[in-house]
């Protein structure tokens, strides 16, 4: 059995297009210092640092843990660098948790970041490779056809994506750290925004952000002594499948379903919509909310959009299962950190420390991240109670 572990400190930067006032080192340090302050700890209290980020080409720094050692107070300590594509922020949190759950460490710091403004992520994602057709369509060009297939299968109304885009930005307006601040956004504004990759409009896509997120994870004994309520880690799971194989269900990937089943079992969750108080799920394009509602078992296959349209996932409509109360990836997207922000935001919820986007009395919540061609999944369940 895994040893108990809990999140005892959370730190984030604000998210914005360009953080010109800090270097990469300054960015990660800001999040780390915020997490240490939140936990009322100092650098000396940390036994190891677990760093995550998306491809090195996003900033052009190879294996950046080498350079970030000093900024993260790691001299003489273990440091490890995780990279699992877009799911990396989540995977990094899981690797950090495993340091404590294995009984090998008492208290670790985990940090993930992206400073997209220092390079060109669109180029890094689809830099031309010889011999292949170069369509430079970016992530939207890859995911839009999959979304179209979802629309065909589910017969979802055309504006379910628009609804998600509005809902997550209204959530984001409650979160002072969120990149996009759009308290007055309307369905009409989203609908009239430029169609980039049909059926995805400009406002249905995530922004490109600079930012970092950090957490301190501690063992049971130290967590109990922590000044603020701990968020107990109740389940952890990862799954991967190949990008392409004959018969792959790209709309509703098996890796996502299996990963959810695994983490629910650990946390004793049988009905996710009922058992969870909220969830932070990686939704970089609006339509991925209904798609993941189905993949994660919150709705039957083909009916995820109904929850969205009913307002079940909206804080502002008093939905029963609010998703992405922080504004989600649609409001802030420092790619390598985006998964960890999901994991950290659910920890904030069950600690009762989520400010204006707090779900009243949240006790159990799901954090989710995915990456690659929707093939890498990382999830955790955190609770206000140990079991």
């Amino acid at each position, binding site marked *: 059995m895994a040893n108990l572990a809990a999140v005892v400190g959370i730190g984030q930067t604000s998210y914005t297009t360009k953080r010109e006032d800090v270097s990469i080192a300054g960015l990660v340090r800001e999040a780390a210092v915020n997490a240490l302050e939140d936990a009322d700890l100092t650098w000396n209290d940390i036994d190891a640092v677990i760093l995550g980020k998306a491809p090195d080409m996003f900033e052009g720094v190879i294996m950046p843990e080498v350079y970030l050692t000093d900024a993260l107070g790691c001299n003489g300590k273990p440091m490890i660098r995780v990279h699992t594509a877009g799911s990396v922020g989540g995977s990094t949190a899981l690797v950090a948790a495993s340091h404590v759950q294995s009984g090998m460490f008492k208290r670790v710091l985990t940090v993930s970041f992206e400073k997209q403004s220092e390079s060109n992520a669109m180029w890094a994602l689809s830099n031309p490779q010889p011999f292949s057709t170069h*369509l430079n369509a970016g992530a939207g060009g890859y995911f839009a056809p999959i979304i179209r297939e979802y629309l065909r299968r589910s017969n979802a109304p055309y504006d379910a994506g628009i609804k998600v885009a509005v809902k997550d930005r209204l959530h984001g307006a409650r979160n002072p750290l969120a990149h996009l601040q759009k308290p007055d956004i309307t369905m009409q504004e989203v609908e009239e925004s430029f169609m980039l990759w049909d059926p995805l409009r400009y406002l249905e896509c995530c922004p490109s952000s600079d930012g970092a997120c950090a957490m301190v994870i501690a063992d049971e004994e130290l967590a109990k002594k922590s000044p603020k309520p701990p968020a107990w880690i109740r389940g952890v799971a990862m799954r991967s499948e190949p990008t392409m194989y004959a018969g792959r269900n790209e709309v509703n990937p098996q890796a996502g379903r299996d990963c959810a089943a695994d983490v629910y079992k650990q946390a004793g969750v049988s009905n996710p919509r009922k058992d969870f108080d909220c969830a932070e799920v990686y939704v970089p394009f609006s339509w991925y909310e209904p798609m993941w509602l189905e993949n994660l078992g919150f709705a039957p296959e083909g009916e995820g959009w109904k929850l969205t349209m009913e307002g079940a996932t909206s804080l502002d409509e008093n939905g029963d299962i609010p998703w992405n109360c922080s504004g989600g990836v649609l409001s802030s997207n420092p790619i390598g950190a985006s998964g960890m922000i999901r994991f950290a935001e659910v920890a904030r919820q069950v600690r009762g420390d989520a400010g204006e986007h707090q779900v009243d009395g949240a006790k159990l919540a799901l954090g989710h991240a995915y990456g690659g061609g929707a093939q890498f999944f990382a999830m955790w369940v955190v609770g206000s109670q140990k079991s």
Partner: protein
Amino acid sequence: MSEEEQEMITKVEAPVYLKYNFTAGSAPTRFLAQIKKGVLAGQRCPKCLAVYIPTRGSCGRCGVPTVEEVELSDKATVQSFTIVSIPIPNNPIEPPFIIANVVPDGANVSFIHLMSECVNEEVHIGQRVQAVWKPEDEWGYSMDNIRYFKPLDEPDVPIELIGKLTVTGEEG
């Protein structure tokens, strides 16, 4: 100079140029040698028998090398698509244009390519299409030998059969 006079440095330009000798891989090289001759060659997984194009060297499902070569048709079916409204740098194609996942007859996976000579609003899943090739003297070791796919005047493929047609376009 006092601190308030000092301007903040917010940027250094440090362009990175690195040169690589790119290798496609053995199996992809066989695919590229065929496409240079105007042939779409798939490769079959010895375990699950799925036909991949373009192969990357292995069957992702089974984790084994794809060896047997299978000549495919240049007729294909639209598995899905998107209408793109952003231009491709250094490419003459004007937005809006269509990129589609197409499955050539005889293959079991799709690849991404352009569609043209079509009414964008009428493109649909299950639609039949065919490759429009560049002139033969322009063929190289590249998928770009196919300029784009254009609609065919053939009945749509039922959803459940997409990716399952034989090389002659029949039910597999």
